[in-house]
């Protein structure tokens, strides 16, 4: 049993879970949260994560955490993955733990590792400017035997180390590269477009083995997903499980949770997209918690503890073969207009038997909508619950296009 968990990053729901589970913890986050932590008796160490210097580094943080007897560090956000990796290297006496953390933080390195290990990946390359992307697209077009007048092959560019969809651009043509790419995008990873149904896995790992696997079906990236996976994906579960264990072995993950994204083609081939090891976006763990009726955030933290016993594992995780009766899905709502004044919940939603709840915030008068960065700033989420995954998919697709803001 861990003596104390260092929660790397500020998350109230995680803190609440730790309190309810009655586990020792300390929160490490930016000084901004110190006041709130003090008021609410939350053990807290303030740290400037975005500073890296002689006085701000993992050894210094290690010293600061000593009084709390921390022996496990848990990364909650993308930006704290290396910090947690560095601390855990010290706690476990294994320098490779830090290297693994870097693997999660560099998408090019991550892909190379996957390729070496025999996972199917798209064509990818590090690019440093627009010319680089154009050359990449050209080579891809050649490989795809493009004939004059045919469409260009689609290319995605992603920053090496950003969460989810932040900075992710889809480029459909040479002109797109010209129009959409910014100087500040580079250097970054360029990769070919992977066809197929996109889904993510949340694998809770202990002792290098997957102890629980959640599959999240993406209805539309950045907009909607549901849990557990629908019938078709479910029928591929064994295959997915096999590929997942391959990934775990390959990356040498021993403790914690990984959240990779995969593509399943019509020919039942799985392609690896990317993988993260922090709390996934899109309220995925919230949905998983409801669908499987377990404390997903608590389990996320506890799995990082090498000393967790089999009993404790069993208690906190659902059985490996669990298949819930109810599907939980959500759709993130973005305004469709540039200036909004009102929030209106459509009547059809109120009458929808799958509709569960929403947390949409009314706008202030004449609120102007800034252009979106990634899929970051949605106005809230609408949640659904029901027994038929096909109906769920239909609803999520439908509400993505309904105007809630006028």
């Amino acid at each position, binding site marked *: 049993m861990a003596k104390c968990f260092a929660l790397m990053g500020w998350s109230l729901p995680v803190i609440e879970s730790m*309190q309810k589970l009655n586990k020792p913890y300390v929160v490490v986050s930016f000084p901004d949260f110190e006041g709130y932590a003090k008021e609410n008796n939350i053990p807290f160490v303030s740290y400037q994560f975005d500073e890296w210097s002689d006085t701000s580094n993992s050894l210094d943080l290690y010293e600061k955490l000593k009084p709390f007897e921390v022996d496990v560090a848990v990364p909650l956000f993308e930006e704290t993955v290396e910090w947690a990796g560095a601390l855990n290297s010290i706690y476990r006496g294994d320098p490779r733990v830090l290297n693994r953390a870097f693997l999660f933080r560099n998408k090019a390195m991550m892909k190379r590792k996957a390729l070496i290990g025999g996972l199917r990946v798209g064509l990818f390359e590090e690019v440093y400017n627009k010319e680089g992307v154009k050359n990449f697209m050209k080579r891809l077009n050649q490989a795809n035997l493009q004939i004059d007048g045919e469409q260009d092959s689609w290319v995605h560019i992603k920053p090496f180390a950003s969460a989810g969809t932040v900075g992710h651009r889809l480029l459909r043509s040479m002109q797109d590269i010209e129009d959409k790419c910014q100087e500040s995008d580079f250097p970054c990873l360029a990769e070919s477009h992977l066809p197929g149904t996109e889904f993510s896995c949340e694998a809770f790992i202990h002792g290098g083995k997957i102890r629980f696997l959640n599959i999240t079906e993406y209805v539309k990236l950045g907009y909607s997903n549901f849990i557990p996976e629908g019938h078709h994906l479910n029928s591929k579960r064994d295959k997915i499980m096999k590929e997942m264990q391959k990934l775990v072995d390959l990356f040498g993950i021993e403790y914690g949770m990984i959240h990779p994204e995969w593509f399943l083609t019509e020919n039942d081939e799985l392609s690896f997209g990317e993988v993260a090891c922090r709390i996934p976006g899109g309220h995925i763990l919230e949905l998983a918690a409801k669908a499987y009726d377990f404390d997903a955030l608590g389990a996320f933290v506890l799995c990082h503890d090498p000393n967790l016993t089999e009993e404790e594992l069993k208690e906190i995780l659902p059985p490996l073969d669990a298949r819930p009766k109810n599907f939980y899905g959500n759709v993130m709502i973005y305004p469709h207009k540039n200036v909004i004044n*009102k929030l209106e919940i459509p*009547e059809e939603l109120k009458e929808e038997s799958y509709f569960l709840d929403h947390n949409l915030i009314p706008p202030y008068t004449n609120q102007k909508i800034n252009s979106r960065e990634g899929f970051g700033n949605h106005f809230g989420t609408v949640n659904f619950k029901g027994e038929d995954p096909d109906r769920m998919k239909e609803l999520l697709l439908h509400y993505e296009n309904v105007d809630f803001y006028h």
Partner: protein
Amino acid sequence: MHNQVLTDNTYQKFEELLQDFSQATALTRPEKAQKMMGQIDLLIDTTEGLDFIFQNIGGLSKAGIFDGSPWADPSKLVASLVNGTLKSGHPNSTIEILSELRLLAIANGKIKIKGCSSDDAENFIQEVIVANLEFVFNEPLEETRLVMSDHELKKVHTLFKFISEKTKLDNVKEKLVEELTLICEQRPVVTEKQRKIIALVKEKIELDPTVDLDSRLLKFQRCIYRPTIKTVNTNYQEYKISLKKLSKEQLEEESIAMSKSMLSFGLVSQYHPVLILFLIENGHKNLVPFCLGLTEAGTARWREYEKFISTLILKTIHPFNAQCIYGLAKMLESGIFSREAVRSGLANMLTVTIHPEVEERILKSTKTPHEKVSALQYLMGALFRVLGQPLGVGQGNNPTCQSARGISMWSQHAPAKLINMVQTAATYNDLTFRFEAQEIKASEVGLGLVQNLDHNLDAVSVTLVPMLDKIYNEMMLNASGRAEDPHKWVNPALYGQWIQIGFASAYDYLFNAIVDFDGFIKVFYAMCHPKYNGGHRLIYPNPVGIFITSSKGDMLGFHAISLLRVDKDPKGKYRAYFLNPNNEGRQDWGQNIKPSVYGNGEIYGESSLPLHEFAARIYAFHYNNLEATDKMDNVPDEEVQKIRKLARESWGRAYTWLETKKIW
């Protein structure tokens, strides 16, 4: 109204959210509360949903939904703030509604909270009701309509319906008298609102005739429930039998008493039709003028067209179609019957077959349709009211001020045309208009401004407005893109050729700014101010566009009214007398500009303002361009500057102002 059936699912979802909320620690409470409030927001726009939340209010309060908010301590709430909070939308309006439900529960002894006794809670709720009569009677002010969504309005109205049924209303008497006076002094064509208040008072408040305030409320009540001594403790059927025993002298007395009751507030009781039909059917036609309370001129007209009008009465009036008697009396007074075209039109109306869709709208607009009264009868009755009370025409809760203004104008100046329009619309559910040598047919053009007509209107309006609205909108589309306000061309085409050719607008489309406001005001004064226009009176109503401003003077939107006349009020001050189709008596346009509806020389249905205050809200009007430009130099600069200041510091803040001089 949408009738949501509360399923088990709804209850279960609420229970789940409440449980989530109760179990959350202080850390995630705000987030859970937000979700639960979202759910409550959706539930409380129906009475069932609101009642469900009311049943759970103790639990919600205990779970801490009010904790850490300004609503935490019920003894520290301020009743006068409630109205503003309700208008500010979810989540504020939702928690405000929960707070009222909690007070109601305290008042009813359902729950107990330290520091707030059941009497305290009761008093608070009464204060809230007084300050929110617009919601109690679902007659939101123009400002409210502009800022609240339909869902929010429904929520708030549902709340007030709910709490006014569950509370005593003794402390709100004074406010109710004021409210009733404000409404009745305007003699509106639709009398549902005042009837609702009067019925509510009758049902909920014990009145003592020896107390002044009570006796004033009783006067309103008697107009409807016992207009004469002989109607006391008698229903209208029994009253009919009792009339047979009366002598001629007694019938005359009864007629005088009946009309006196009607004229006091413009409200007609169910006994009145019984009496007037009895008089006509039993050879007492000479008593009808007493029964209608006619002057000598009115009586003379009755005598002239006695036979024709008797037929109209017999075919139209019924105890369930009573209110039109007042309109008929006013028609006799105004002399409208002397026009051959009007008599022909009315005679034609009696023969039409009403289109089923129009019939449906008419019956929907009738609060208590009676099987013995046909849609045509209701339509005829409404026509009497509109023709007799042109300034009583209102738009209801619809954004159709243009159409209401038109109906009022035609009723005054082209009544036969109006009757003919009603006849066409009622028969074919369609209308055609001419616009610049083109025909515009309502059934062939796109949507109008209103998609869901609020049927709280008179039968003439529900017949015409859906089509007028579409035609108006189509005319606006045709006239747009001309770099000037389309109303310049649409107003004359819609309302008629009496609209002046000259059109002044403070807003300039090319510059997207207010240009030469001083010149604009000078033209306005030269058009209507007797001191500067050569001592002339206005002849026809002038369709004027005004800025609607909030009580803080903030720009809210645009509105259409008619300027009827400019005259000295009883104190010798020049005032603008105008028709505001939204029939509001309690308007506050900010900067202490508050239109009045009585007491300042208004005739029934007029609103008025000191002329310079009125001028400070206008943005467009028509004028005689051959005439006004000569006279605009007479208008003194200091008067213009006074108006300019008011305008700039209110709606003017929303615009750029340019001082380029224009040629008017």
